[in-house]
């Protein structure tokens, strides 16, 4: 059986030097932004506020709302980065919303500062070769690790799945894999998600046992 290496994703924020205060400049910046910049504003934002049910789901939407552009804020808020497996597809959706909003040169109340996530992945020194050891390692890992394997894995794998489910299928645990895939990280905080996954794993393990 293939082993599962537990890893974790860490990041530090870097300012891109791009600061915009009109819709046209914002559109241009989105079109030119690198993947780590889009990742920062869409994914890292989700992680940063995971314990809340925020009014708006990403920092772009917040910026629009701060300037009273509520319709745009709501249109941006409905963007679900988890519905995509590539950042370019998310970018396309954003540009479409902006194109429909039309050209506008009115200045916003505050500028938007584009930031990027400088990312690094570390191995946690834990690996699993079977369900039992997988459960033990999973229990010890933190929510940064959970985010790496469950959420940003979609972009890495280019498929609507996650590292856990991928590996569990190779271990013959298709049922558990599908249950984990069905979890929606938007609905719960990552501590809850971790608890749910642990329950799924333990129940699955007992049934097999």
């Amino acid at each position: 059986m293939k082993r599962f290496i537990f890893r974790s994703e860490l990041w530090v924020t870097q300012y891109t030097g791009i600061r915009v205060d009109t819709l046209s400049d914002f559109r241009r910046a989105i079109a030119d932004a690198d993947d780590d910049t889009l990742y920062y504003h869409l994914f890292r934002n989700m992680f940063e506020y995971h314990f809340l049910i925020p009014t708006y789901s990403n920092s772009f939407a917040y910026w629009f709302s701060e300037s009273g552009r509520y319709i745009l804020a709501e249109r941006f808020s409905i963007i679900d980065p988890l519905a995509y497996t590539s950042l370019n597809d998310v970018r396309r959706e954003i540009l479409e919303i902006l194109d429909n909003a039309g050209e506008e040169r009115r200045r916003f109340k505050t500028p938007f500062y584009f930031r990027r996530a400088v990312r690094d992945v570390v191995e946690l020194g834990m690996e699993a070769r079977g369900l039992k050891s997988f459960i033990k390692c999973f229990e010890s890992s933190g929510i940064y690790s959970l985010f790496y394997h469950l959420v940003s894995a979609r972009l890495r794998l280019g498929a609507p799945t996650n590292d856990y489910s991928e590996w569990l299928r190779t271990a013959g645990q298709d049922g558990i894999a599908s249950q984990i895939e069905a979890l929606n990280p938007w609905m719960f905080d990552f501590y809850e998600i971790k608890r749910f996954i642990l329950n799924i794993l333990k129940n699955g393990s007992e049934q097999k046992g």
Partner: protein
Amino acid sequence: MLIENYTPFVGRGDVEEIKRLADSIRGAKVLHVNSTMVGGGVAEILHRLVPLMNDVGIDTDWQIFKGDENFFRITKKIHNLLHLPSAEGLDSREILTFHDYTCRNLGAIDTSPYDVVFIHDPQPVGLIIKRGNGQKWIWRCHIDVSTPTESVWRFVQTFSNGYDGSIFHVPEFISADLEIPAFIIPPSIDPLHDKNRDLEEDFVQSVLSRFGVDPDRPIVAQISRFDRLKDPIGLIRAYRIVRKTLDCQLLLAGSFADDDPEAVQVLEEIYAEIGKDPDIRLLNLPANSHLEINAFQRAATVVVQKSVREGFGLVVSEAMWKGKPVIGSYAGGIRRQIINESTGFFVHSIEGSAHRIKQLILNRELLEKMGRNAREQVRHNFLITRHLKDYLMVVKKLLKG
């Protein structure tokens, strides 16, 4: 290991990640340089971060850039002129004194054994002249330079442009014409510091009783220096509106140096505003009253930070860590810490402050829910473990690309 002491706050997973990250840059030698060993937020954070960096295996030293009263008068002026635009600038004598002290410290501070050198704030910025081949130097700017006095910013830039990168608290603090890469690393609080560690309820009660605060009535508190920019008068007026319909007390606690003439004057203004109101406690405490401040924050029903202008305002995170929602103005770093309507409220006026104070005192459920969110916001984003992780990431990025 020292880092293990943080496991109860952030979990085993987070601590393990920090250790693994440190392992990936083991062997790197790091130096921090600032201009004071005691007093101020920079020294306070270095006292905690340097031992932690060593603890996780990164050989880290801390050296002090030395100056005299005249030098620090000039660097205080630089600080103020970087903070806000002014018609004033540095005269030739001040520039020469700055260079003179930079030269003196060039000989006193040995930067050669280090792979990465962190220079904190403008005082030691000129040390960049010493940068050796293969070394990475980073300028950690703790002040808001978004609207600087042009001539002074140009003067500082002649040095800062020589750095491999910079670090600012928030992007809003960065000057539009900064020419080097900038990382965004907000400051942090240490849950093990006397300011923040858990306290026995008996101790909290004894502090309240020592300072004449009634533990049985709601307490509205603001902890801050006695400075007009913290708007203590505005808070007193907000409290008076609340008092028309609700029983509560106001606690204003802070401290100032005896030789700060402006603080003395502000204190007098506050006393005049208070008049004979027995329910307002104004406490001028010694600078090291960490446990007392901790107790006041824990005992408070609602914490307010009504600053007109603010640096980062870490006192907000200190209160939030104790499970208190904070009512704050939309200024400086306060807007990064409070999540409006989730961990507290942003307010823009005396009336707005009064409205939110009343809401939180009257609605215990809301108060508790926001308090839980507030603590989680700090646990997730403003603890020293996140700060340590960010610094290790910067070191790794600089050394390994």
